[in-house]
């Protein structure tokens, strides 16, 4: 089992490596530099700036430096926010994004599974159709439509929740953003759980379980649920990706100071190191999620990773 995990880890590292390298190259090759937008600077100052950021060195040397600093967790200075390094910006923003992201993920999983099981047990009845139709809506309606709408309903008309802004430690400001982030993954998880549970219930070992006189409750939770969750586990990594992209929009609209907003600002300002750092960070998170999913598969189905 351990060897299985190591193998997975081994596969992930080259991927990461490729991403970093590609990103680096793309940026360096790109037309125009980070200073093009600024007013025309006298050549000497430009040269100084370039050397300060290490841009006058040969490409492979820059690459080597970059890799080395990456290993130290240093993404370099931000091109725009001159007083901050990318690492500092990330450190500032990460807690906020992590908070809403993890909350959304847990909510989506927990609620989604419950709803999915509920719909499966009432297959083809009114409750099932309602739930599944709502699920399609949840998947199709984009988060940048949902959040303003929710804001309109709950913030402007009903005055229950704040529409935007943020104070440290405040939960109220996070409610609408988290809801907006949760909807699409929740819908997916519900659909997946329902379909998968219905399929698992057709399998022979479920018939055996019923033949033993076990109540429905036991058959579902002890026998059917774990194999039924395999597709949900498979969706975890895309769910994380979906929440990460959603956070870009949600943080921008709601004015939350998370890394999502930094990413967007960085893109608009053409802040190379910031965006590059973000891409690396998001990739690491995603790859990490993928590894966790592999571990999860092994728990859900003991046959995985079992060497005969």
């Amino acid at each position: 089992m351990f060897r299985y995990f190591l193998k997975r880890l081994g596969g992930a590292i080259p991927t990461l490596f490729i991403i970093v390298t590609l990103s680096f190259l793309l940026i360096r090759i790109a037309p125009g530099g980070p200073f093009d937008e600024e007013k025309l600077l006298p050549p000497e100052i430009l040269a100084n700036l370039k050397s300060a950021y290490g841009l006058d060195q040969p490409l492979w040397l820059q690459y080597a430096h970059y890799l080395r600093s990456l290993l130290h967790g240093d993404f370099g200075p931000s091109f725009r926010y001159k007083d901050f390094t990318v690492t500092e910006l990330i450190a500032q923003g990460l807690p906020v994004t992590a908070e809403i992201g993890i909350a959304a993920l847990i909510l989506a999983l927990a609620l989604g599974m419950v709803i999915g099981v509920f719909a499966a047990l009432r297959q083809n009845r009114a409750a099932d159709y309602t739930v599944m139709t709502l699920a399609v809506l949840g998947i199709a309606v984009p988060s940048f439509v949902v959040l303003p709408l929710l804001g309109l309903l709950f913030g402007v008309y009903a005055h229950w929740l704040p529409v935007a802004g943020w104070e440290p430690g405040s939960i109220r400001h996070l409610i609408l953003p988290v809801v907006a982030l949760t909807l699409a993954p929740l819908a997916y998880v519900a659909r997946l759980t329902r379909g998968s549970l219905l399929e698992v219930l057709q399998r022979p070992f479920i018939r055996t379980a019923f033949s033993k006189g076990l109540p429905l409750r036991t058959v579902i939770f002890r026998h059917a649920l774990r194999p039924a969750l395999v597709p949900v586990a498979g969706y975890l990594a895309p769910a994380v990706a979906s929440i990460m992209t959603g956070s870009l929009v949600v943080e921008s609209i709601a004015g939350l100071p998370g890394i999502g907003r930094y990413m967007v600002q960085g893109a608009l300002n053409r802040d190379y190191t910031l965006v590059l750092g973000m891409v690396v960070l998001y990739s690491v998170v995603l790859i990490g999620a993928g590894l966790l999913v592999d571990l999860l598969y092994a728990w859900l189905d003991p046959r995985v990773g079992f060497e005969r």
Partner: protein
Amino acid sequence: MTVRPAARPTLKTQEVRVDYPIPGGTAAAVRGVSLSVSAQECLGVVGESGSGKTQLFLAVMGLLSSGAQITGSAQFEGEEILGLAPQELNRIRGSKLTMVFQDPMMSLTPHLKIGVQLAEVLVHHRGASWRDAERTALQALDRVRIPDPRRRLQQYPHELSGGMRQRVMIGMSLLCEPSLVIADEPTSALDVTVQAQILDLLRDVRAGTGFSIVLISHDLGVVASLADRVAVMYAGRIVESAPTAELMRDARHPYSALLMQCVSDLRRPRTDRMPFLAGQAPGAAEPERGCAFAPRCPRSTERCTHERPALEDVNATSQVACHYPLR
């Protein structure tokens, strides 16, 4: 025939029908079967796939999907169980009335340890604690002659061989001292050598406890080695039923006779031509017209294609449904 005290049959079905709605009508998997199994008796039920033999007993156990329309009556130890609510049925299923399935790899839950799958029966039916239940499970594994049972309890189904898995399933069915065990093709998914072992096991276990068995199979040879009586099914109905020895010696229905010849029996001289059954049994969706076996029967006449023969008593112990039985 001596009259025994408590002659109430363990299982008695009357005109059980199983229908499934399909576009354009219904498909009849079981077309009206009445049989009974006495205490301590082993009834063999033989038929090809599609004959309804499995569907019949799944209906009795309440394991068919909600789309199935079941009519008729089935009484287990005097109590009507067809149409019983699941909570009520669950008292009986798994304890007094148990089932052993065909493919033990697919029929055991892959992510639960053997010990858990055995113990949960006792925990649910006897209210035992998990610890006590596992101890009893250990004894059950002994009973079905699984070596090193303590280790096996902690293993998963995929870590056991096919034969061992089937022993586990049999052990599982015996945990609560059942009155009737329904064994659906218990050996079909196993190697030939293992098949014999399992049949021996069933025989030995029964000798000790005396429960009834229904042994379902497409292989008459398997059934003959264990059963006291045999019922032959074709296209959803019983076409013949007789004590085993009598059937093997003097099969009356042409279909039974053909089945007999297909059984590989080392004691009989090898003929140079193996008889084979041409054609196919009618599917469930086809309506009945006359005797279902007529198209394939070497003895069929005009009458057979119009008039369905009823299942009639031939003597005190046997019945056959044929206009022109062999004897």
